[in-house]
């Protein structure tokens, strides 16, 4: 933490500041410490058995997708709610807030700047949660493989459940991706969120390697 403090990228509003309380005493406020929970995430217990199978089925049949388009692929998501594709039949719905979403579609290239927001949002979603990488950009960088500003491999930063290849994959491919994801969840393999927590340090190292302007707690609850 201390090293970060000396970091030249620390935002002014996150600097430690001294404030005069109404009674005249001076309070020291460290925004990153005081305003954010410092707790580290813990993996949840993965149970086995018919009850859990039933719950897995429910989790699979009710996929709530966060409405967050990260790249050009986000234009492929709106057709899903049109009559032609109609993802609602498969129990897939859109939500506007990460607190209520389970599926995060990384739709295409991911710039470093967006990656930071993606990490924050991902960490705010409740577990079990799933990540779908859309398009070749999330797999190996795609046509932006040599860009100074977009990451190459999504799975170094977030645990990815399903990749959908293509540049861009069409909405049908997305539906296929949902089907694959459902399959995985029903098989009891939908606990990548735990992987993220278990390999937390590795993920954080990777993330912090590209995000110099970190300015947030290690885990965004």
């Amino acid at each position, binding site marked *: 933490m201390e090293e970060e403090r000396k970091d030249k990228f620390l935002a002014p509003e996150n600097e430690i500041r001294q404030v005069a309380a109404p009674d005249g005493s001076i309070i020291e406020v460290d925004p990153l410490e005081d305003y954010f929970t410092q707790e580290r995430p813990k993996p949840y217990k993965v149970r086995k058995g018919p009850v859990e199978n039933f719950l897995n089925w429910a989790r699979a049949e009710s996929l709530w997708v966060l409405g967050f388009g990260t790249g050009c692929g986000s234009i492929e998501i709106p057709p899903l709610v049109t009559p032609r594709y109609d993802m609602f039949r498969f129990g897939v719905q859109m939500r506007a807030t990460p607190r209520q979403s389970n599926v995060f579609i990384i739709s295409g290239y991911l710039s*470093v*700047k967006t990656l*930071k927001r993606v990490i924050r949002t991902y960490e705010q979603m409740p577990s079990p949660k799933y990540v779908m990488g859309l398009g070749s950009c999330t797999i*190996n*960088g795609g046509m932006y*493989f*040599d860009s*100074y500003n977009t*990451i190459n491999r999504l799975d170094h930063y977030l645990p990815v459940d399903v990749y959908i290849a293509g540049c861009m994959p069409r909405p049908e491919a997305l539906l296929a991706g949902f089907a694959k994801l459902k399959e995985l969840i029903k098989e009891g393999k939908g606990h990548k969120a735990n992987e993220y927590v278990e390999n937390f340090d590795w993920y954080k190292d990777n993330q912090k390697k590209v995000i110099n302007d*970190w300015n947030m707690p290690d885990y965004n609850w």
Partner: protein
Amino acid sequence: MQDTIKNLTERFGASNMIEKKPGLIFITIEQSKAISAVTYLRDIEGYTVLTLLTAVDWIEDNVFQLTYLLNNPEQITEIGLRVMIDREKAEMESAHHLWPNVEVYQRELKEMYGINFPGSPRIDENFILEGWNDKPPYRRDFDTKEYAENNFFPRPGRKTNDPAEYMKQKMYPNNPSDYTNKKYNPNR
């Protein structure tokens, strides 16, 4: 238009006029006289709109070329003022007092080329990059591929093809010479 060019040439020592098409002229001007020329164009000649401010990295000549593209809405004519500035000492007078939007262009140039505009508001703030820690990325001596490979965990096994060769093989796998045949390829 011609009078304007004449005036620019006479008063500000502009040179090297290029007429791209009727109503679009590029002209080069010395760094020290650039801002006064821009002011002159805005206030006297009616070039009241700054269409854009951009830069080109002429690494071979060791200069940056700044282009102030000005538009005259009355005459529907445009003048591009080119200013060559030293690449080593990349600094230019700020023009934010003339148009408020110049401030944004200048922040972009500062971030992407490292050209400084002392006195321009918020010049040191991030423009689109957050926490950039390297050479300004639009400078031609910045190797973006190397940077990406060092930072972004390239996935191994990636292949690169020359598009021309690749297409030749894909489209005319039997007779590659067809590629040069006018009959099949009107471009040739």
